[in-house]
């Protein structure tokens, strides 16, 4: 593999995805170093979610390399295998297991054996309970633990999904629009939470909320029409005339 991929956690090079002739990703390249948090912004339809689909195995790119940990070719793996490598994902539209309780959602997400033989006989251990309780605390869902997750508020669902991400103990978290539908104070808390998570894990956050991206204080990648338009600090990209033209200036 390319020497460029050494010392990187996630490496996308020249990735293109075409849907019925429409280029959702167009020669996209992106490099994430271990421990980094990256914010990805861009107008609607820029290809942000499609990029996450490619990384998590949902969509196969037509061309390009997608490498994890320097050498693992993600384009050859399916979703469960990629999840097993330690890549967790929060979806743009919150998707929790609605009929299950908050507790059971976290239990199902806890890192561990995913095979039928294990789950058939698995008993909840004290260690598992301890982990779930700590995640409940982090995500402020302790009081909601026995509630059906489908009955949570939109913001609480977002937090539960972040909690499920944490439960998986992934190396890399892909977080698609985590603060959509959240109140200002919830948004602030989410920024704090993501920075906390970033102390031990790498994160890619897609977000439209500029205040939130600013609060994260990390390197920003601007996508437009499936490619990288600009990259750098939030101040740098927001002064980039191309960015102003296609995105911020509208």
């Amino acid at each position, binding site marked *: 593999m390319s020497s460029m991929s050494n010392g990187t956690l996630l490496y996308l090079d020249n990735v293109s995805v075409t849907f019925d002739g429409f280029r959702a990703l167009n020669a996209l390249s992106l490099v994430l170093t271990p421990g980094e948090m990256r914010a990805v912004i861009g107008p609607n339809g820029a290809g942000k979610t499609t990029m996450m689909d490619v990384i998590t195995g949902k969509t196969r790119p037509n061309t390009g390399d997608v490498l994890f940990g320097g050498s693992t070719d993600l384009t050859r793996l399916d979703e469960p295998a990629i999840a097993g490598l330690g890549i967790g994902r929060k979806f743009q539209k919150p*998707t929790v297991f*609605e*009929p*299950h309780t908050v507790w*059971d959602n976290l239990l199902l*997400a806890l890192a561990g054996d*995913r095979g039928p033989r294990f*789950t*058939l006989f*698995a008993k909840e251990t004290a260690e598992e309970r301890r982990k779930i309780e700590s995640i409940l605390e982090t995500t402020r869902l302790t009081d909601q633990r026995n509630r059906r997750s489908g009955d949570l508020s939109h913001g609480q669902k977002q937090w539960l999904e972040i909690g499920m991400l944490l439960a998986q103990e992934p190396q890399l978290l892909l977080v698609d629009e985590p603060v959509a539908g959240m109140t200002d104070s919830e948004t602030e808390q989410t920024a704090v939470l993501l920075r906390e998570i970033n102390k031990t894990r790498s994160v890619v956050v897609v977000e439209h909320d500029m205040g939130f991206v600013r609060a994260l204080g990390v390197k920003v990648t601007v996508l437009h029409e499936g490619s990288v338009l600009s990259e750098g600090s939030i101040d740098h990209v927001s002064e980039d005339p191309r960015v102003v033209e296609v995105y911020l200036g509208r």
Partner: protein
Amino acid sequence: MKASALTVFLVMGISVLMVVLNLGTAASSPVHVSTFMVSLAGKYLSYAILALSVDLVWGFVGILTLGHAAFFALGGYAMGMYLMRQIGARGVYANPILPDFMVFLNYKELPWFWYGFNWFGFAMLMAVVVPAILAAVFGYLAFRSRVTGVYLSIITQALTYALLLAFFRNDMGFGGNNGLTDFKELLGFSLSAETTRCGLLVVTAIALSLLYLLARAVTRSRFGKVMIAVRDAESRTRFIGYRPEQYKLVVWVLSAVMAAIGGALYVPQVGIINPGEFAPANSIEAVIWVAVGGRGTLAGPILGAVLVNFGKTILTGALPEVWLFALGALFIVVTLFLPRGLLGLMPVREKGDPPLPADPPTPAESAAKEAVS
């Protein structure tokens, strides 16, 4: 009393009561239960096992099977083959080895796949192993290629239809159109004896109770929580590392084995197995029993199977030509007005029971969804 204990209590209690009233009272007594009724109840409980197996895949992992009667019938054929071999030289042609239909069709020797079926243990092993292998191969191919929804339903229907056509053929060696019948005895007990009929009902009730408790344990385990997650958000489970196809396969094979046990118990009580049991309509009826009783509850299918078949017995006796219309009407009424089935009307859930499926969307909701996506 817990809902599960009540279910087992009712299944066992009513069966034992019928047996007591059959054997313990004179035929002239007003509380006497006829042997015909005993076997009818045994037949209903066999159907209840089939319904339970359908609910396990439809109610808990979301596979709408329209072919489960195939597994039921295969289990039934294995039992039928054993019973045929037990007839021995008492058949019309008095051939000690060959069943009557083989003599009639000029078979010179027993086909290889009939070997061993004179042993009860072997026959019962085959009754579950053959359907399990068929289910495993079918499920492996279907689930691995991510066939879901109505396409999957259609191929389950094709499966049972293919078997129907195959078993109709005389040269398949299973008695063709007429199937297997004229059974004499089971493990040395005469099938025409009242005590045998009563014994069969009790054995069926025990089998149903045990399978119910097994299904309950599976669905309440962590495995069961994954089943529900697969049912309601299959693709989401993949992103946290589960392989839904593995879960579906395990449940599918387990369910096929359950259906086959139901079929094996059914045959000695009705006295015949023929290719008609593979008819697509039979599988569809089983789905209706589940819908009537309550999809995603385990007691529901038992209730649904017994009630609908009781209705069928009465109606086909009185007005045979009306039955199919009544069944269709019942299905429409249940889907429109009783989406959770009869048990959905009653709060009989226990703590730790898996969540019920969402009510199916009304036609208007589906249309709206279609318009958006």
